[in-house]
Structure formats: structure tokens, C-alpha cells
């Protein structure tokens, strides 16, 4: 049984290297028949550039999603902390009956924006 498995494994390895060789020969032929010049690129080069662009796009997309999620979390944390702080300050005002100037227009708009 083991011999059979080894034999199969060898066959797969041979098939794999044959496929690589065929691919190499095809690309070599296209490159020789259609060398890259200044303005023109051969199909094989373009194909490789296309797949490179796609994987770069995917990498950037994943990176962007990570950064965007992180930002949302921090903003939520900021809003929560700010609200807690304001609530505590209001409690302090009641405790100490400190007369505070009414919030300026700017402060009101800022609070509204945050809400």
C-alpha cells in the first residue's frame, strides 16, 4: 500500500513540474514573439500586472477596514468618556452650588455635533 502511495506521490510531483514547464515554455514563446517595448506590453506581463493589482487592491481594502473599525471604536470611547465627565461635573455643580456661566453658542454647537 505504501509503495502505491509513494508511486502516486511521484506521479503528482511529475505532473506538477510538467505543468510548470508548459507554463514556462508558453510564456517564453509569447515574450519572444511579442517583446515588451516602450508603449506596448505583452499579454503575459499584463496578466501578471493585473493579478498584482488585484491583490494590492485586496490588501488595501483589508487595511482600510481595519483602520475604519479602529477609529469607530475610539470615537465611541471618546463620546462615552466625555458624557461621563460632563455628568460628573454637573453633579459637582449641584454639590457645590457653583454658579457657572451658561454655555456659549460654540459650546452648544460642539455638544450638539458630538451628540
Amino acid at each position, binding site marked *: 500500500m505504501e509503495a502505491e502511495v509513494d508511486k502516486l506521490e511521484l506521479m503528482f510531483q511529475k505532473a506538477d513540474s510538467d505543468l510548470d514547464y508548459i507554463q514556462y515554455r508558453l510564456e517564453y514563446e509569447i515574450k519572444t514573439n511579442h517583446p515588451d517595448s516602450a508603449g506596448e506590453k505583452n499579454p503575459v506581463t499584463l496578466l501578471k500586472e493585473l493579478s498584482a493589482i488585484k491583490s494590492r*487592491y485586496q490588501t488595501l481594502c483589508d487595511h482600510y477596514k481595519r483602520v475604519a473599525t479602529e477609529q469607530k471604536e475610539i470615537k465611541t470611547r471618546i463620546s462615552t468618556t466625555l458624557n461621563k465627565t460632563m455628568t460628573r461635573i454637573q453633579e459637582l455643580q449641584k454639590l457645590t452650588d457653583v454658579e457657572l456661566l451658561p454655555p456659549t453658542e460654540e459650546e452648544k454647537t460642539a455638544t450638539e*455635533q458630538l451628540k
Partner: protein
Amino acid sequence: ALKDDVNILHDKARLESQESIGFIKATKESMK
């Protein structure tokens, strides 16, 4: 299609950046 996707995401990222800048300003205003 890929070109459009990249454009859409780029515009979205730029909008989010502006929104975050506004958020930072508003928070700093409230902290005063």
C-alpha cells in the same frame, strides 16, 4: 469595475477623514 471600486472607496475614506477631523474639533471644543 476595479477602477470604480477604488474611486468609491477612496472618496469614502476621504469623507470619513473629514468627519473624524470635525469630531476631534467638536470634542476639543467641549473639553474647554
